[in-house]
């Protein structure tokens, strides 16, 4: 049996599917709905990866970091657990509940831990909490062979596997979870292997990314982001996008709109034609973060505590549709993925390339934290 880190490198060309559901009033949405949304887009995936992120799904542990971890073997599990025990207090530890399905095979060991940082250790290192946790995640993924943390935020969780998204959703028993936001991905790997860790969403802390496309600036982006302490170990471009968003929002303090202006910066010809002050602002972002411009086709949905951002590359080389009905917002690669769960939306529209769509919980609910608008 091949390990999760050493799958093959066969190239299979095609696309992917993404979808999301968001309740602005914070209403709990059952995980089954996002599985239904993915079904009409079945042929955008090829069974080599599917995954989901749910927000608001662990209210009983809302103040603990929920770590979801894959292990190739028990040796990796022992090494990772002893690493975590030196750095966190365990509020709970369990296997992630799954359902046996013939469509999902070669399962790694998948564990879930609810963790509280050991404050003395954190203070010794003079790190804030999110940086402390992020460094632990990056360390495990880069240094502990056969262990991979694929979810590490509070009151949210990522569920992913090799398989079609509908099967992956049933495998993880998503009907047993409820949250105010779900994102989903069906994978059709193009340049990199289809393995469990390579399925989307990619996550660091509470930031998750699902992505349809393939970025041609991967290596330039990877070299830049690795200078800031991120290690790209997962053999896919989406990992780099996740770290870039984490870096720009959490470390540089950029808003999500500014982040969009960096990764999907307009062409210089478009910037020149802008009125002030938009022109200087766009030019500043392009100059200051030129190596974090992402080129090539992409449509992404970024999840975070209290919100969502959808973004297309500036040429809009991948499709994306937004639907709204009352307090609900739906974003998907294809309109059918929205209509199948909401046949009569109030409004349905396609965002322009490079134009971020940012959705947040109403002010009466808990708002976003570090992702200011």
């Amino acid at each position, binding site marked *: 049996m091949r390990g999760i880190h050493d799958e093959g490198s066969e190239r299979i060309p095609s696309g992917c599917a993404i979808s999301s559901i968001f309740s602005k009033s914070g209403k709990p949405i059952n995980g089954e709905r996002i599985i239904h949304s993915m079904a009409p*887009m079945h042929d955008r995936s090829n069974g080599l990866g599917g995954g989901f992120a749910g927000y608001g799904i662990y209210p009983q542990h809302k103040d603990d970091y929920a770590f979801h971890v894959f292990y190739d073997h028990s040796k990796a599990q022992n090494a990772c657990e002893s690493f975590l025990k030196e750095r966190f207090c365990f509020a709970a530890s369990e296997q992630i509940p799954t359902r046996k399905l013939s469509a999902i095979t070669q399962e790694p060991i998948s564990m879930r831990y609810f963790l509280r940082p050991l404050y003395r250790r954190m203070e010794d290192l003079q790190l804030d909490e999110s940086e402390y946790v992020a460094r632990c995640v990056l360390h495990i993924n880069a240094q502990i062979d056969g262990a991979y943390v694929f979810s590490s935020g509070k009151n949210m969780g990522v569920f992913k596997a090799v398989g079609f998204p509908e099967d992956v959703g049933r495998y993880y028993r998503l009907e047993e979870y409820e949250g105010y936001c779900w994102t989903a991905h069906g994978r059709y790997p193009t340049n990199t292997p289809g393995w469990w860790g390579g399925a989307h969403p990619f996550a660091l802390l509470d930031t998750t990314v699902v992505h349809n496309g393939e970025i041609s600036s991967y290596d330039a982006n990877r070299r830049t982001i690795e200078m800031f302490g991120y290690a790209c170990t997962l053999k896919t471009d989406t990992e780099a996008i996740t770290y870039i968003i984490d870096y720009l929002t959490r470390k540089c303090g950029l808003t999500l709109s500014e982040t969009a202006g960096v990764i999907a910066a307009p062409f210089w010809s478009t910037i020149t034609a802008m009125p002030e002050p938009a022109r200087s602002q766009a030019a500043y972002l392009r100059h200051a973060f030129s190596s974090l411009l992402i080129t090539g086709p992409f449509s992404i949905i970024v999840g975070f505590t209290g919100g969502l951002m959808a973004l297309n590359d500036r040429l809009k080389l991948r499709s994306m549709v937004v639907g709204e009905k009352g307090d609900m917002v739906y974003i998907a690669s*294809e*309109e*059918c*993925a929205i209509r199948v769960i909401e046949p009569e939306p109030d409004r*349905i529209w*396609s965002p*322009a390339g490079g134009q971020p769509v940012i959705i947040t919980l109403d002010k009466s609910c808990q708002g976003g934290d570090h992702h200011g608008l």
Partner: protein
Amino acid sequence: MRINAFGMYYRKLNETIRACSDHNIVIDHLCGQRYIACAEKDRLFTLRGTPGNGLAQYMDGATVEVFGNCQEAVGDTMNSGEIIIHGHCGDACAYGMRGGRILIEGNVGYRAGVHMKAHLDHQPVLIVGGTAGSFLGEYLAGGLIAVLGIGAKGAYPCRYFCGTGMHGGKIILRCDKKPEALPPQVLVSLASADDLSELAPHVEAYCHHFGHDVQTLMAQTYYVLTPNPEASYKRLYTFE
């Protein structure tokens, strides 16, 4: 024949259509099923719901009327026939279209009418009622694209890079002011009487299907984009 497509896989749906010899095909409750009416000749399709990607590709004479929005790649390489969309349409519509007509009531996404081409009596026509995304008519080689800008209040009804690399055909845009910042391969002029009489039958067809007033629409200001023979591409282009 009337088919309820609810939950039906696209392959089964298309096999059912092909196995049927009826002239009129009505399909209800479509939700993302791909490749409907591809390469069809002569028949009449009435579709309700959301047909999937690749609707009416390579179509060769059939008529497709859609009551709902369409997704990507509608009428790709279509040869003849007509597509009537009561709603909006996604990206890459009419790519490489070679003949026939597509009427869209609302907006069209990015890259509509890329590399449409004409030959003798094969003259492809794409009429968009609302607005169009970037790269409309990129590399246009022949045929007619018109954007009527209904709801745009006289503003330029496209986004960026309209007609980039165009070397044939004609784009007609309804807007109050002369479009600016177009690529150098494009010449802009007010629509002439000949241009308007070329457009008129298509606007009549648009109004027939979607219920606007022909006289009012035709009385507006139209600009025509044609290729600039002085600035054609001599090598590949790229933006920065």
